[in-house]
């Protein structure tokens, strides 16, 4: 081996009078102890007039950096102290490193202050909201244009998306809403039993599931399942320049990628919500039977009287709005991807968090509005 390592002489230095003598292999693997030793030793504080490097048996660029650093530290009046005795090939390496550094005139960017960073973050957030608004507008324009000539509606991707976002989500949505029905009935049971109002468990489960929990829970599941998938799919297409390719062959990416997703989700989410309603109530009914001794027939009978049609419609009516929110945010985050795989992951996360946030905020606004309207 041309550059012996572990078996080579250990790197080090010794102070003799006012000369610092270096020896051994000054290579990237060996210099870590030298560096620490130097910081601790008296050599770093005493007056050293010269550095004798004739004992250095092997040198690489890391060694050069350390040698230069030591020379700079030992020098005075702003001048590095002299390094002498380097072997010719080592001297060549030192001047190679120095020449590379000299060529470089550009100075590194100065670190920014906290205030500047806060301002920049705020500005980015404002720009981001503006862009989301712009995206919504763009989608609306494309949607109107497409609806004006219905032959341009792409049914295949719509049906495909109905299947992946709707049908494929049936098991998980059903299971979670069924469990939610059980939980509500169970929590209500202890309270209702105290008043002997067992039968009102039907009101509790029916109203809670139909009006609030089914649409909300379904929307959250779909945001996690499909909203993220939209962001990742469009984001990856952006990274691989497929979006640009679509534009060059004269297909509007929004028409092909976004509109079908919004339409598909607006169809699938209400259907999923109905299904979730059924299973949620079924869960509550099962619990009412086993915990409160409310028979299935009694439960259904009470349910019919407790619920108005408007309760059902309020729940279902929210679903298309949630669907639009999830699809638009997912797709928008996909289009916001810039550069690399890292960005795809980040945007996917943002899409889910933001979609769930907006779904819940919208749900709260709906509650206030329905309350005011007395529905």
């Amino acid at each position: 081996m041309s550059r012996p390592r572990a078996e080579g002489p250990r790197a080090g230095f010794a102070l003799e009078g006012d000369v610092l003598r270096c020896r051994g292999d000054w290579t990237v693997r060996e210099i870590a102890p030298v560096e620490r030793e130097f910081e601790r030793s008296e050599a770093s504080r005493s007056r050293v007039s010269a550095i004798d490097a004739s004992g250095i048996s092997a040198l690489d660029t890391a060694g050069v950096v350390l040698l230069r650093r030591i020379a700079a530290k030992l020098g005075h009046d702003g001048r590095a102290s002299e390094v002498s005795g380097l072997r010719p090939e080592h001297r060549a390496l030192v001047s190679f490193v120095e020449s590379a550094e000299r060529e470089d005139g550009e100075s590194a960017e100065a670190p920014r202050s906290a205030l500047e960073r806060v301002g920049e973050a705020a500005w980015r957030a404002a720009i981001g909201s503006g862009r989301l608004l712009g995206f919504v507008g763009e989608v609306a324009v494309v949607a109107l244009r497409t609806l004006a000539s219905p032959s341009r509606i792409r049914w295949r991707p719509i049906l495909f998306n109905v299947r992946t976002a709707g049908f494929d989500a049936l098991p998980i949505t059903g299971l979670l809403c069924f469990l939610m029905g059980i939980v509500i009935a169970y929590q209500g049971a202890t309270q209702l039993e105290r008043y002997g109002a067992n039968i009102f468990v039907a009101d509790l489960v029916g109203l809670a599931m139909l009006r609030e929990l089914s649409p909300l829970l379904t929307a959250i599941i779909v945001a996690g399942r499909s909203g993220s998938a939209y962001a990742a799919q469009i984001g990856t297409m952006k990274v691989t320049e497929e979006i640009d390719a679509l534009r060059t062959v004269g297909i509007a990416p929004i028409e092909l990628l976004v509109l079908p997703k919004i339409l598909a989700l607006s169809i699938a989410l209400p259907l999923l919500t109905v299904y979730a309603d059924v299973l949620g109530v079924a869960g509550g009914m099962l619990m009412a039977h086993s915990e409160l001794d409310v028979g299935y027939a009694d439960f259904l009978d009470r349910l019919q009287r407790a619920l108005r049609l408007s309760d059902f419609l309020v729940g279902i009516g929210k679903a298309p709005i949630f669907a639009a929110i999830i699809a638009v945010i997912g797709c928008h985050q996909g289009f916001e991807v810039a550069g690399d795989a890292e960005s795809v992951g980040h945007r996917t996360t943002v899409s889910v968090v933001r979609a769930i946030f907006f779904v819940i905020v919208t749900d709260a606004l709906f509650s206030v509005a329905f309350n005011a309207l007395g529905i």
Partner: protein
Amino acid sequence: MAVTSPRPLVEVRDVHTRFGRSIVHAGVSLEVREGEIFALAGASGCGKSTLLREIIGLQQPQRGSIRVFGREVVGIDDEAALSLRRDWGVLFERGALFGSLTVAENVGLPLREHTDLDDALVDEIAAVKIALTGLPSGAASKYPSELSGGMRKRAALARAIALDPRLLFLDEPTAGLDPLSATGFEALVRHLKEALGLSILMVTHDLDLLWHVADRVAFMVEGRIVGIGTMEELSVSEQPLVREYFHGPRGRAAREQAWKPR
């Protein structure tokens, strides 16, 4: 020039590789000597990149022996592989810089991982490596996605030489670069090789690179080496496959260029 040592740095003996039913290597043998720039050339899909992956231990051949620094890498265990890997640097075709780290952090990563140098010294060494590859120091604090293709290649090269390796592997070093950047990169590779005493094994189908940079070239066709030698030797080879490659219009142009005084 190159000081030939008795022991080759890389020694590939009779390597056979198959993916399912397709044969990638049917008995490949070659050696890379100390201090030379050795190029593995051939058309796309001839198995040269796979051979490189096998030499650096990312993939295993079915049969044969690959020795790097005199140590067998076929069937090597992880610990031994790690100590070998510290002695070589790899430049991947698309750079493979870590997107979540700045250029300086990318270059400093191997140093932080494999040495106990303190942070300030690591940063200093990383800055030197970045300067050596001809990048402006302003590039150090940038993320890979903010760099152009040529700068990204240089940053990736800076990471490959972070630990001052003795052996450098370059996978298609000029692929995806414009002619001017490619020429600059050629010069950089030669310059670094001389200054840092590197040996280089590169995989390429860039004829200019073969003429200007490589000391010796192995020419691979469908999993076999059909010719090894300097470009001058290969260009007068009687082997029909080699002739076809070097005497096509592009091959001739690259050769004429290489003969012009530079």
